[in-house]
């Protein structure tokens, strides 16, 4: 059963320059939401960005990880509020 921290570390290890914030939003170790910012996302469509994150987990998404809600962004597109 992965923790939010596990998910975060795996994303950051697999995607160059990624910073991830991950929340286990049910506390059950199988529903996570992640916000990922990565230079590697630059110039990619949202679909491609999300695929990069899903690819870190392969068949675990939909398996042991029931849900991985994603928000992805390239550093250059971050809104400053």
């Amino acid at each position: 059963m992965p923790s939010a921290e596990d998910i975060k570390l795996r994303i950051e290890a697999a995607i160059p320059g990624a910073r991830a914030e991950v929340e286990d939003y049910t506390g059950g170790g199988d529903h996570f939401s992640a916000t990922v910012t990565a230079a590697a996302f630059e110039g990619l469509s949202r679909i491609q960005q999300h695929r990069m994150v899903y690819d870190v987990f392969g068949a675990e998404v939909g398996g042991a990880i029931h849900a991985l809600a994603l928000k992805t962004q390239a550093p250059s597109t971050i809104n400053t509020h």
Partner: protein
Amino acid sequence: MSASQFEPIPMLSSEPAPAPAETQEAGGEGNPIRAAITEAIAEHKVILFMKGNPEAPACGFSARTVAMLQSLEVPFAAVDILPDPRIRQELSAISNWPTIPQLFVDGELVGGCDIVTEMYESGELAQALL
């Protein structure tokens, strides 16, 4: 809001699949489920693969995606992936996308609930569905 707002497609009819005359696509010996999915995507401008159906979604992500489409009052086709696990397997193999729901517009994967939500909030979804 009319009842014809969506058009559910039964993906698995009990009738046997017609002999594939010209399926050279993946599957080799012809894969009726994959062929049916590919055909459904090609034939519907807006099609949502989801858990449950629009009147009774079986998952919160599917429910939210349906609600966004309905609020834009766009007609869409819907396919319930739950009746047979092979539907999801084949769909994910085609789309290279692991999760459900999956929204396709004009034959292309737009995304799952997260992307659809972002696009809905930014107005891009309404644009894409025109």
